[in-house]
């Protein structure tokens, strides 16, 4: 498991119901089932990964964040996890709404577009920045909705989500020491990890707007 997956696993209480969107190789699911005793299920877009996961005994179904979440009932899960994918979905706001409709908590990680290297490169070269994290040219990247940590916080505020926990991590998933200041995290964190829950008077999750 990547280090940031361990951090995610650490946010999830044992014995709960979890949906991992984009479960990939299934390592997190496997950990959640075998170690945490969770009822953990996955959705994965890559059919080979689905087959591999099911052949490994893990409950994974073929599907994706944009099209399959709407079919689940309210409160079906305690946690809905979306790892490093929010920037690549068609409608990030709608996906978040669905996650916090079907789950009581959402755990979201995404690469931070506010990282200093990106800012620096764009400023100096005047071209779309490329780094180890953002490693595909603009015309090929699946990351169609990049955002910064501050952008994400603004969206959470607008949608009425409560940020229960947040942390910045570097590319290898090592926890970066920017816990105190969100502005420093936005400058130095390569990846961001958020644990959200619905606000008491949430308006986003009803999906009426």
């Amino acid at each position, binding site marked *: 498991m990547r280090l940031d997956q361990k951090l995610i696993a650490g946010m999830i209480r044992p014995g709960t119901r979890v949906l991992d969107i984009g479960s990939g190789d299934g390592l997190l699911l496997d950990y959640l089932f075998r170690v945490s005793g969770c*009822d953990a*299920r996955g959705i994965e877009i890559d*059919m080979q990964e*689905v*087959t591999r996961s*099911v*052949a*490994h*005994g*893990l*409950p*994974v*179904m*073929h*599907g994706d964040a944009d099209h*399959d979440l709407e*079919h*689940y*009932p309210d409160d*079906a899960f305690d946690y809905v996890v979306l790892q490093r994918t929010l920037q690549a979905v068609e409608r990030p706001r709608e996906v978040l709404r669905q996650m916090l409709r079907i789950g009581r908590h959402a755990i979201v990680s995404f690469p931070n577009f506010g990282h200093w290297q990106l800012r620096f490169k764009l400023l100096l070269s005047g071209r779309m920045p490329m780094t180890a994290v953002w490693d595909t040219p603009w015309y090929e990247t699946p990351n169609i909705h990049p955002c910064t940590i501050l952008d994400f916080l603004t969206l959470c505020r607008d949608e009425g989500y409560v940020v229960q926990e947040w942390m910045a991590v570097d590319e290898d998933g090592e926890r970066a020491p920017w816990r105190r200041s969100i502005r420093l995290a936005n400058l130095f964190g390569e990846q961001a990890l958020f644990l959200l829950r619905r606000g008491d008077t949430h308006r986003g999750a009803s999906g009426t707007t």
Partner: protein
Amino acid sequence: MDQTVSASYLSHQHVAFPDGLMLECGFHLAPVEVAYRTYGTLSPRRDNAILICHALTGDQYVAEPHPLTGKPGWWSRLVGPGLPIDTDRFFVICINVLGGCMGSTGPRSPRPCPDGRCEPWGTDFPPITIRDMVQAQKLLIDHMGITRLFAVLGGSMGGMQVLEWAAAFPEMVFAAIPIATAPFHSAQNIAFNEVSRQAIFADPQWYGGRYWEHDAIPARGLAVARMMAHITYLSEEALNRKFGRRVRSAPQGTGANPGSLFGEMFEVESYLRHQGSTFVRRFDANSYLTITRAMDYFDIGAEYEGDLSQPFRGTHTRFCIVSFSSDWLFPTSQARLLARALNRVAANVSFVEIDSDKGHDAFLLDEPDLDRTIRGFVAGAAEYARIA
């Protein structure tokens, strides 16, 4: 007498239930005989039973040579010691469906009559449904003292039975594996079945369904039905790969001279004729009509105005839905419909589309990804069920 009738005297392992069954159509069918085969050993806790449901023209001989054709069991690739359905570990049951012709009560069974002059049911056999098939299977499962099936699996019409089991007896089905199937039979599939049936009716040897009185079978019609259906089990790609446009000379005795219109034969024609002719030796025409009709009636959401989720509300069964990319008879879109219906009731669903060019028949053929999927899902479910 012809082979079909002699086949009916072949003895199959079975249990007779004198009280019979109340069918969905309101007819009380009695007695009911249920023919089956088992493999492996039932555990002392009776918790390791796996029920395999066969497809339209399959039967209970899933993992052993067929008594009529001598061919290997239809899923012997998958069921046996050390195989994905491991008979060293699980007690595997396969039951001939109600309406079938391999020992379970069906149109060829003797119709009880007061004057003792017994004749087969024939076309008077009551219409049955997938639910009736499952009810008949449950008679046997209850008779065996099994209160919970660890898994129920099957492909095509077998998959329909899997869904019916999971919907009708959720507490009895720990895991369900519907393969290459759909939550209801589509209009296109009903249409294909109708063509098959009309081919049988058009055969002069059909005699209104009472062909046994004439020592005949509607072999030509049944063979055409099978040929047509067989095309729907394949895919364009598979046909091209297997046969292409290759030609061979027409077999002797067909009256075709070289140079005449049918002096040559495409290999695909020859293949289909072979499929047709071997089929009529082992299958009864009235059974074919009865079972295809049962498939046509199948709609798991029928009682809920077509809502496919309601039958599974509150289910604790673990589902593993499998489809094949080139299957156009039971396409992935229908499997996805089922998967999403199960999502709506927060069921535990795995859903795999296996990449294959073999069409609907892929579930019976060598597909390593299917083997891996079933083996893994069964192992995972067993871990969950805490079966040693």
